[in-house]
């Protein structure tokens, strides 16, 4: 029998407690090496659509806030286009990177509410933000998604939400409006309300 030769992906290792040194050196107090930490600003000018703030905290299985996590997000612009696609908003990068506060663990992204993007079969996915979480003790970066609690109709038709068997867990993927364009999305690594994570 012939063999299919394929390389194996490099195994993941934890980001460890000092991920900030490499990814957010100015945040870590290492000044003067890079002008600015990458991913700090997603909105670069007169952006289209609704500007929002996504706020949250990552909690461990004991309910304690992680104070060393780094969170990255990737999302479409207000029209549902990803940066680099034809017609995408030039004032929006689509990619953000933030550290949890070293005392409280809170993170925040200044972004826009994304538009809907197509699923593989052409149906539309509900507006969502892809999220990646790394920290000490996390061996393989965790992938999840933020959906918006005030998009009930789109959420009800979303092909990925539709395949989640335990319907009561869907609420763990919902960012909740808190007024003034702020949405809250807390991430729970374990426990009763463990966030849904994806194997994508």
């Amino acid at each position: 029998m012939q063999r299919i030769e394929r390389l194996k992906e490099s195994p993941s290792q934890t980001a460890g407690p000092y991920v900030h040194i490499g990814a957010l050196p100015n945040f870590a107090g290492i000044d003067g090496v890079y002008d600015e930490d990458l991913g700090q600003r997603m909105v670069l000018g007169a952006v289209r659509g609704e500007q929002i703030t996504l706020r949250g905290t990552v909690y461990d299985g004991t309910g304690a806030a992680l104070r060393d996590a780094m969170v990255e997000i990737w999302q479409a612009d207000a029209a549902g286009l990803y940066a680099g696609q034809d017609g995408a908003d030039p004032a929006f990068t689509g990619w953000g990177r933030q550290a949890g506060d070293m005392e409280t663990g809170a993170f925040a992204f200044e972004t826009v509410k994304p538009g809907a993007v197509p699923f593989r079969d052409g149906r539309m996915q509900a507006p969502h933000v892809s999220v990646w979480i790394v920290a000490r003790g996390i061996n393989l970066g965790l992938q999840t998604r933020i959906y918006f609690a005030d998009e009930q109709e789109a959420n009800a038709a979303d092909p990925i939400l539709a395949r989640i068997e335990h319907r009561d867990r869907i609420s763990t993927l919902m960012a909740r409006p808190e007024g003034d364009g702020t949405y809250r999305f807390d991430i729970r690594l374990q426990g009763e309300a463990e966030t849904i994570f994806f194997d994508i």
Partner: protein
Amino acid sequence: MSAFQQKQAVTQTPGGHAAPGGGLYARDRAWHPAALTPPYKTSVARSPVRAPISFSTTLSEETGPVFTQDMLGPLDADLIHNYAKSPEGAIGPRIVVQGRVLDEDGRGVPHSLVEVWQANAGGRYRHKKEGYLAPLDPDFGGCGRCITDEFGNYEFRTIQPGPYPWPNGPNDWRPAHIHFSVFGRSWGQRLITQMYFDGDPMIWHCPIVGTIPSREGIESLVARLDMEATIPMDARVYRFDIVLRGRRQTLFENRMEGL
């Protein structure tokens, strides 16, 4: 808006190359560390218990931000000098780390952002939460970054980091290592890992290394000393290739050059 942000804005180039029938190869999760690895104690309260939910990648996972050379400063890939006040630079054995970012089909992944961080030659990090008594090197910051060329090649210059003790078991030490964060062409390829050094006996004592299930997997993170490439009277060269997830190709797809 600073010049840097403006640059960032205009250097966004096509990220979305999703082709019908494409999508990323499924990740072999048995090859990666499990979420729960009790010998690495911090994983116990930070590991999801429920199985992750799988779906085939969509545009959201197949696109990603693109980074280009012009956002880098001239010393970004030179950790010996990028923080140093003295012209000699950081203290420690000088090394060059070079290699390729590849996908699972062995194709180079161009325009990958490779970010690294490490302890100094004494094993000490420049970080508020660092507790090791080894001294800081005033000329070493510990961060570097580069972007792969059109063939997926990257290279940076640094000093060999020292091993260091860490609070886990009563006497756990990390082997000398360099942390790598890699951004390929799509969100679903995002990876953080660590590079170890050929011949280091500490590798086989480390609970974090030990989270990787197979010896073969561990060995794939050990950089090779390349004496042929070594620069006489300057720096030894270590070679370290990184493999990111590949993408299914469709028969009639006209973009075969990688993600």
